């Protein structure tokens, strides 16, 4: 029975046809896994497991899983320029991975062929912007997918706590000139993301277009190149990860003590809203965003 309140206000429920429930993991591809590992460890991530058959390492802190893929056969690793790591995949937690994958293909997504070895998980994926991929994972409640494909690193804590309670807040995607409408439509259509009004902003870099995932657990930001930029600078890629944190100033302090450098600029307004780490290895930066 519907309650009177609901009838009176007719609150629309946001559709979530894939049953997205947050981010299961984010993946970097790199030919310099150790250098990237150091950066991640400064940020509070800890290596916890290694892939059984490939040069892939799982890092973790708190609720965040981060995979470093240095598998030489992976085309994405080959594509990394001069060893610069690239954000190569985001895995969404969904209600049913097969159904999510099938639905996306029906809507016009490009499927990624699986290269799972014997006894490994076949995680369905579609192509994302640039050389990136979106994975769909539906087994995250009852057990960990990493128990199948990964061997734990001995003596290491499997679930290291997050520094200052950090968690995935969102992903920043660089897009081509005048491509905002295209990508907004793509994410709305494929994943039921919804655009956030331009007045509503988070963090310290309020550029571009913002979307919210249908589960409400993370944001997605699209940033076009500046008009004066060359065509070469207008490539499309997943650019950086946003980390949500309750106390930005405290987190900045803790991370600085670990050797992380931050961008200090009058253009940015670090105060309480957020902070941006200095880009290292040519491409790796993290954005801290205030989150209650």
């Amino acid at each position: 029975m519907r309650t009177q309140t609901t009838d009176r206000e007719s609150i629309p429920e946001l559709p979530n046809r894939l049953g997205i429930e947050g981010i299961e993991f984010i993946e970097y591809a790199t030919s310099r896994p150790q250098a990237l590992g150091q950066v991640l460890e400064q940020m509070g991530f800890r290596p916890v497991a290694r892939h059984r058959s490939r040069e892939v390492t799982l890092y973790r802190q708190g609720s965040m899983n981060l995979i470093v893929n240095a598998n030489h056969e992976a085309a994405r690793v080959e594509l990394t320029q001069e060893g610069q790591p690239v954000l190569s995949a985001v895995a969404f937690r969904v209600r049913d991975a097969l159904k999510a994958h099938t639905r996306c293909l029906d809507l016009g997504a490009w499927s990624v062929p699986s290269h799972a070895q014997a006894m490994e998980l076949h995680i369905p994926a579609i192509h994302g912007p640039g050389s990136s991929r979106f994975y769909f994972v539906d087994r995250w409640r009852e057990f960990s997918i990493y128990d199948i494909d990964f061997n734990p690193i001995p003596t290491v804590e499997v679930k290291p706590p997050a520094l200052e309670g950090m968690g995935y807040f969102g992903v920043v995607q660089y897009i081509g000139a005048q491509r905002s409408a295209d990508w907004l439509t793509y994410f709305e259509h494929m994943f039921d993301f919804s655009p956030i009004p331009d007045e509503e902003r988070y963090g310290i870099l309020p550029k571009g277009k913002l979307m919210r995932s249908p589960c409400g657990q993370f944001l997605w930001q699209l940033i076009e190149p500046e008009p004066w930029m060359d065509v070469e600078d207008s490539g499309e890629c997943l650019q950086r990860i946003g980390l949500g944190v309750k106390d930005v100033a405290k987190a900045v302090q803790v991370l600085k003590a670990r050797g992380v450098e931050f961008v200090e600029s009058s253009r940015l307004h670090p105060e309480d809203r957020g902070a941006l780490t200095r880009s290292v290895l040519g491409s790796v930066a993290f954005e801290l965003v205030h989150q209650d």
Partner: protein
Amino acid sequence: MHMLDGYGMDTITLAGSLEAKLSAMKAAGFSQVMLMARDLVGHPGGVESAAQAVRDSGLRPTGFQVLRDFEGLSGHLHDYKVDMAKSMLVMCQAVGSRVLLACSSTSRHATDEREQIVRDLRKLAMLALPLGIRVAYEALSWGRTVNDYVTSWELVEAADCPNLGVGIDSFHIFAARSPLDALEDMDPEKIFLVQLSDFMWNETPTFEDRITTARTFRVFPGEGVHSEQLADLVMRLERMGYQGDFSFEVFNDDYQQLPLSTVAERARRSALWLHQDVLHRSAPLPDWTGSR
């Protein structure tokens, strides 16, 4: 900025190798070229060499053609067409074209159900979107369900994707005797391509007449019997605010056996007729005057 910048030839008009076609167009003063998939796959060096030839020519691709009979199919036919579309999109991207031309279906196996056509067009647009390609959907005057530009526009509007628009071809408008008044209902920014050509008959009552004429005996704008209507069409598009390209889609068996420079010169004359006599645009002043 040159006088012929908004006009381009189509490789299908000329005989010979891709390089010879590109060179003839360039020598006639054109700066863009509408490419046919056959130009790439038939190139002795393969698709990559063909794409390189286009890049080396300095000519900007107006668009890439042509995806046929995509919409309205089901089951294995639909899956097959999705594969065809993907291959075409990959080539379109390789050659640096931002527009893929898709013609309305002539297939007896295709449904006339509007919802499915809209769904398929949206799917095609989604397939093209991550590649940065826009789809221009064009009504063939012998299309089974969609055979005038008004219907193609209604479907494009219903599919509502930023990278899906219409392609207008003057031949089909004159052959089907479609009134031009409905142009005014269209959003000029959703016209992704305008192809211009004329022909020598006043009547093409049957689909067979239209097909034969379209494929063997089109002529350049200003050379046929519909010059007045063609001028009217171009002026209406100009008034609406259309700022895209005019490409000469001239299939002509005679032109296929003439020297390329002779045909390209006819194209140049046609472009000048449109530019000076129809649109009354003046020749731009030299750069040094500072008044562009």
